[in-house]
């Protein structure tokens, strides 16, 4: 598990400088060691997982056209936009 912090940080798209990796790793291991106790919990063979506190059927509604929020209000929260779309740094190297 020595590179766990760095591998997971890469998956989660969180920059983790080498200098901080060890401390982060230690912190993660503390929690992982604690939750490891779940491994030993004995359960009935046929037990189903419970993913949500409401096990409802699909909530469906009539598909009616409704106004959305104004584009300029949504884009006003963006760090960068051209008034029509979000702008991001280039995706491919030129």
């Amino acid at each position: 598990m020595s590179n766990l912090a760095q591998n997971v940080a890469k998956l989660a798209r969180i920059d983790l400088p080498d200098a901080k990796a060890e401390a982060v790793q230690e912190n993660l291991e503390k929690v992982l060691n604690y939750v490891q106790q779940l491994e030993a919990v004995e359960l009935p063979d046929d037990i189903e997982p419970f993913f949500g506190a409401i096990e409802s059927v699909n909530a469906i509604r009539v598909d009616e056209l409704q106004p959305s929020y104004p584009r300029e209000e949504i884009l006003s929260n963006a760090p960068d936009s051209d008034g029509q779309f979000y702008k991001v740094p280039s995706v491919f190297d030129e």
Partner: protein
Amino acid sequence: MQIEQLSVAELVEHIGKGDLSAAQCTEHFLGQIRDKNDDNGAFLAQCDQEAADAAKQIDASIAAGKSLGPLAGLPVAVKDGICTAGVTTTAGSKMLSKFVPPYDATIVSRLKDAGAIVIGKTNMDEFAMGSSNENSAFHPAKNPWNHDHVPGGSSGGSATAVAARMAPVAIGSDTGGSIRQPASFCGITGLKPTYGRVSRYGLIAFASSLDQIGPMTRSAEDCALVMQTLAGHDKKDSTSAPVDVADYMAALNKPLAGLKIGICKQHFEEGLGDEVRAKVNEAIDVLKSLGASTAEIELPYTQYGIAAYYVIAPCEASSNLSRFDGVRYTNRAAAEGLEEMYSKTRAEFFGEEVKKRILLGTHALSSGYYDAYYLKASKVRRMIKNDYDKAFESVDLILGPTVPTTAFKFNQHAADPLAMYLADVYTVAANLSGVPALSIPCGFDSAGLPIGLQLQARRFDEATLLQTAHQYQTQTDWHQRSPQS
């Protein structure tokens, strides 16, 4: 008239009769915030102009003799993880330091429609991850009973605001105890409703299958009045339940004769503070004197609640918080390409605890680990739910302490974060199983810090929680005590 000591019903009645204007009432509480916020940090933002405008409208309606909503003129503080149109909503995070939502959360719309006035946004642990408010990216709120102690979390600002009389009502959210634990630490009443009872639309999600919004007030009666407005199905939240809402106010005055209260031995074992134990036992005697009876029950799988929670909540958080990537929400770090922009933005604007939980969740959901972590935790979650279902076949309520201790000091758990996680040991199971739960004050320790009593009930039976809490509060005055600061 000491405005800040009036109950919700009294405030609404005075405003409706015209002997207190909504403008005066609003200005009074805004003044309380101005006076106290530098010292206790309960609020991240004050809505002076918006609140004054809303109050003026209420007063105009009263003058014109129009019919009023059930909460007309009532000032309300809202946790900063809940969206308010046109008012900065940060969720306690630098990531959203400039985020201005274009819409109100459903509960904010409901409160406004009922005539309530939003006076400010309350402090919180970043993205609701924490039990002390020390994880607020801005500054921690402080416990009004003693500023060296934490107010609890994550809805610590909401609890501080109500306890310090800066707002008669605050709205919080509870994922593993985030309404009840700060309510306990600050000596107020806090209700986490049944999962699905209150719409989550506009609540900035932490762990979607666990999050619930609820009221934080001084008394159970105040809580019932506000809950009546919050509860109900919302077509914008497909997990909100199409279940009729009970008449909570009508339930309050029913006698407790015949009520069966379950006591779980596990809640009174190792780790529980002696003073907390003594006060909770006294509360049991009060409820017995009102006609309730007690029976021992077992919730064997709840001992794994914290472990299951620290798998499930981070997994859901790692998914929910992936939306904060520097594209849509206000802050972006300087970077060369897209990949670097994502990872630098997330590194710079998320706090350490949030990053830790995202990493935990990402690890637990990553290829090869899913069965051992998320699936196993979700099966344990089923067993916890089954425990509750079985217990509620024989009792109406489950009673115990809300938290093992009273409020701890700032930095007390800095060296051992797991010790802080255990502050939620009695509260997480209600989120995992979905049942409603409430904390009310039941005494003080020798240092003068409040102690909380937790009641849990069957799904959608908030009425019995509020009834029992109210009946208890007719016999005790813990909920009426005010801190000095």
